[in-house]
């Protein structure tokens, strides 16, 4: 019988799923605004996108607070240890039923590739999107904020790059959730908090 570890605490699971919902909704409205398709139409999509964006920023305030007060931020400290082993596993080992090179514990709940990927999302894609997004929202105030030299085109371009990167991350992330010891194991863990460990 496999060992069970409580990896995702209640707030963390709330954070994850509400963030997931918000990000998916933001993407849905984003590409509506972008003109890729029409679901809500530009006007409504902008309205919903803005509301969702403020909600997500509010959620982040709580999440950042939580990470620092609980020390959970340390879970994202990058490491080079076993990175190659992980890459090797996903590229080859996984098809040969090789053993997973990483064994998670409560203190190390992300494998080295996850650490890098999530850190990248939190330190690069996230800030890229929300800095450009907030600038977008306060476009008319740039001159009075001393930002008159900014180019809306660059801000918009950055925002769109961020959106594509986030979508690519989402696709890969969702796919990789199926690589647990059963296809739904990781998803169950994110719902219940408990992960089965071999």
């Amino acid at each position, binding site marked *: 019988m496999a060992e069970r570890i409580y990896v995702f605490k209640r707030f963390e699971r709330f954070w994850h799923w509400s963030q997931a919902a918000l990000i998916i909704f933001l993407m849905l409205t984003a590409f509506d*605004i*972008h*003109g890729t398709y029409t679901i809500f*139409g*530009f*006007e409504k999509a*902008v309205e919903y996108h*803005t509301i969702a964006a403020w909600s997500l920023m509010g959620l982040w305030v709580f999440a950042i607070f939580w990470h620092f007060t609980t020390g959970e931020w340390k879970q994202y400290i990058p490491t080079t240890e076993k990175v190659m082993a992980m890459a090797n596993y*996903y590229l080859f*080992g*996984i*098809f*040969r*039923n*090789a053993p*997973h090179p990483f064994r998670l514990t409560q203190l190390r709940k992300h494998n080295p590739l996850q650490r890098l990927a999530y850190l990248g999302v939190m330190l690069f894609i996230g800030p890229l999107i929300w800095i450009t997004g907030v600038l977008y*929202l*306060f*476009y*008319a*105030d740039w001159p009075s904020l001393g930002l008159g030299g900014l*180019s*809306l*085109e660059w801000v*918009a*371009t950055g925002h*769109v*790059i961020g*959106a*594509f*990167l986030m*979508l*690519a991350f989402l*696709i*890969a992330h969702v*796919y990789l959730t*199926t*690589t647990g*010891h*059963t296809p739904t194991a990781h998803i169950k863990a994110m719902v219940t908090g408990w992960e089965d460990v071999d």
Partner: protein
Amino acid sequence: MGHSIIRATLLACSAAWLAVTGPVFADEPKPEVKPLKLTTTANHTKFKELQQQFLTGPDVTKACLSCHTEAAGQIHRTKHWKWEYLNPATNQKLGKKNVLNNYCISIAANQAACTNCHVGYGWTDNSFDFTSEQNVDCLVCHDTTGSYKKESGTGGRVFGKDTEFPPGSGNIIKGINLSNIAQKIGKTSRDTCGGCHFRGGGGDGVKHGDLDSSMAVPEKELDVHMDALGLDFTCATCHKTSSHDVAGSRYAPTAKDDKGIQTRGKAGSGNPATCVACHGNGPHKKEARLNQHASKVACQTCHIPTFARGGIPTKMEWDWSTSGKLDKDGKQFAIKDEKGHNIYESRKGDFKLGEDVVPEYAWFNGHVEYTLLTSTIEKSETERTPINKLGGSATDGKSLIWPMKVFRGTQPYDPVNKTLVTPHTTGPTGYWKTLVWDKAIEEGMKDSGRPFSGKVDFVKTTMSWPITHMVAPKEKALGCVECHSKESRLAGIQGIYIPVRDNNRLLDTIGWSVIFLTLLGVIGHGALRIVTGRRH
């Protein structure tokens, strides 16, 4: 003792008074209330000065001035009287006296007809006395009867009885009841202002596009402010007059008003006719984003979705070069469109009309430079000569994106002197009768005091009219996608990044390629896992 006598006397008196007048609460008909004017403190029908038969306009004016002693002097200072305006920004001498356009072109040698819309009597030629007080026309703006009519070809004269004019000509001009009009005088109205401004360019709606007779009694849909059953603004509600000088100008417009709401008594107030003067710089209460748009976009751009919306078409193009054709009997003729509007006249050429017209848009900072008779122009097949050049750019900090009626014309010019020309069109020797260009232009240019080579050619011109009237109710303001789309109304606007209109195609291609490759990667990876039959 003495006390009770007084009391008894008082009681008796009260009883007697009641017996005479009856109790105050008795249900008796109230005494007739005299009709009271609330819009003015003076009932002009009571004035002896106006209880006479007036034979001419100046007779009326003299009566007006006997009380309103400063009125004529005030009028003398205005554009409405002088038809002249020195633009301090460009030092150009403008006004109807000096500018020309690509409609009927100019007033030179046509004063007797054009001054039908002058606030004066008798400007038939350049000898008109601009210092005359009695020649000021009070009634044209202050008539409330609708029966006032200045006679075309007379320099805007009116007569109190049927009169032969010019004397000895045999031409009888029908008299109007000037006494009645003078006694019923009142404030200006959409009708009085509209008498000329709805009919600019010589006919209903011809010139402006956002002013025509549908604005006399407009519905809310057509003009949210003038809505006859709603706010019922007159022109003067916005174009607030002081000393008879009407605020608002096409020669030096306020393109960007950052002064906010104009509080009474506040010093240094600007143009009271702007939207901002009442609505302020941040009028959108629910959507802050719309206020942000106002840093680049004029109110009019979103709030006037189309012009000429009232069912009356406006002229969009005029080609003078095709004029002069005659029918098989050698007579002038006209061609009408299916709605009965002229689209060709022998004397004027071809027209294109427009209704419910989507404006063109341009950066505009209020700077207007005219091509005058003194300007040298080059004929070009590709580029039109601008009659008025509007200043403005994305970067000057003074411009907003404005809606425009852009009127395109083909009009006569002098290919030797390379100037526009001012043909004499009206009257017995004018082009509209003779259909002979060189003679008509010679007369007009002589009147303008400018040289004419005798050669006539045609040049394509363009003239921009910033659109500011026919403000729709807010529900009818433009939606986002009118501009934020690939088919943007602002397609021609340079120097600004408009989301969606300016999406970077290369970025989209790269972005979707990345997404496609990611999908391909995970699908391939997943397929391999299934094929290799491993649970991981």
